């Protein structure tokens, strides 16, 4: 069965092969098949043989932008002593809507030089949440998953199940308005155009409707599962600080204890650092081994930034990030006035 993902994969390999053969790039960053069904691994192809390992399918839940700064660093030849640092070589990278928006954020933040990238744009069909697939299966011994245009054909121990693809697509992809790369040099696969979403923040409403006590109960229940593996941080294309705040020891912002206050501090600050930068790519949530709804916090901040500052991240590399600027017109209803009635409910 030759579906759309096979065509895109073919096109991807052809494009990467040509780019490498022409000498324009020294590596092509994408994904290869993972060690288990329904997983992928980031992969930089540097030869024509390696290009044959590149894939594009519905299980690319990671973000290709995450690896770019590291790859550029690794490919830059070391400078001789006393000489200025060498320029990194050019690389190619595959980018869906959110990945390309994260590349834009990295360009805005001077982490990645645009002129060193050949961005190969593609329209995401929505990535599949493997947990949703596993929940539909009689047991979790999956042998193979074949992706067709609208069906997933799952073969496992004692079963062969067909699952409608859209039913198991991740929540962030279901509410995505930009499946297409926003900034690209080459294009592969069909174009779909932007999607219009009626209620992009619907998933927050249930939590927002609870009282403060209910929201705390939700937060402490969900996030106390955290084992602090920091996979969410490592998978995030926004997390590139040389020293993360969780590793600071003087002052120690986040304690090493298993007390919930430390876990909560980590998650609050992690989400807060992504405010105005997060594109809701969902990589953090997809890599979480404890199935924590990490995206709820970042999505809340996405919503707050959009409502307050009218800004959505990663749509234009010329834009100023909302937290590195200000306006004299910014709303300040939360500012306490002496003698005033006090803060309104936020």
């Amino acid at each position, binding site marked *: 069965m030759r579906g759309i993902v096979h065509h895109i994969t073919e096109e991807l390999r052809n494009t990467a092969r040509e780019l490498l053969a022409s000498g324009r790039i020294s590596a092509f960053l994408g994904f290869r098949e993972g060690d288990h069904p329904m997983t992928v691994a980031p992969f930089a192809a540097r030869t024509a043989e390696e290009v044959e390992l590149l894939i594009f399918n519905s299980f690319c839940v990671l973000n290709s932008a995450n690896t770019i700064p590291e790859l550029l660093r690794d490919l830059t030849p070391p400078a001789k002593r006393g000489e200025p640092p060498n320029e990194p070589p050019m690389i190619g990278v595959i980018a869906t809507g959110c990945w390309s928006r994260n590349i834009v954020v990295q360009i805005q933040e001077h982490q990645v030089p645009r002129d060193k990238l050949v961005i190969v744009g593609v329209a995401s069909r929505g990535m599949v949440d493997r947990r949703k697939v596993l929940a539909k299966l009689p047991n979790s011994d999956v042998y193979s998953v074949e992706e067709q245009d609208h069906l997933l054909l799952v073969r496992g121990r004692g079963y062969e199940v067909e699952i409608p693809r859209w039913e198991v697509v991740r929540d962030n992809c279901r509410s995505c308005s930009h499946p297409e790369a926003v900034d690209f040099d080459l294009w592969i696969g069909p174009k779909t155009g932007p999607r219009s979403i009626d209620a992009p923040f619907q998933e927050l409403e249930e939590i927002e409707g609870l009282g403060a006590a209910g929201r705390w109960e939700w937060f402490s229940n969900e996030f106390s599962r955290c084992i602090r593996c920091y996979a969410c941080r490592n998978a995030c294309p926004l997390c590139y600080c040389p020293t993360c705040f969780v590793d600071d020891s003087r002052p120690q912002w986040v304690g090493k204890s298993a007390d919930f206050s430390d876990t909560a501090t980590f998650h609050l600050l992690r989400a807060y650092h992504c405010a105005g930068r997060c594109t809701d790519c969902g990589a953090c949530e997809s890599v979480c081994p404890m199935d924590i709804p990490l995206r709820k916090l970042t999505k809340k901040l996405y919503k707050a930034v959009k409502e307050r500052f009218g800004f959505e991240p990663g749509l234009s590399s010329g834009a100023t990030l909302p937290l590195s600027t200000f306006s004299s017109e910014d709303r*300040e209803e939360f500012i306490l006035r002496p003698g005033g009635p006090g803060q309104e409910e936020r």
Partner: protein
Amino acid sequence: MDGMRQKWEPKIIAFLCTWCSYAGADLAGVSRLQYPPSLRIVKVPCTGRISANMILDALRSGADGVLVSGCHPGDCHYISGNLLARRRFALLGKLLDFIGIEPGRLNFTWISASEGEQFAEVVQQVTKRVRALGPATRLVKRL
């Protein structure tokens, strides 16, 4: 005096900018204005210097409330530190509200160096709000 039944009073960490609000607090003091002894003042160069880390650290360390006060918009010694901070505080407030931290625990205000009276008033107001919420339990580290 029955020490066992002492009334609980909130502990509020106040981050005051050195140019306006700290001087405002000073003025309240030298003017001998009365306000509740609930504040633990941390002097910072500018509200723009305050990161979310510090506010969360205060809450984690057992503060019942936090007060952040800086120069009025337009009066910042560093031109725009308080305006940048205003954006950050707005988002932090949203986030902490979303996870169920009572809004009254997190207070932001602008106090200039000449507003000693207003400073005393704000402290009374904030203390009253935090007192009404009771001792902080969420986010407090217990070991």
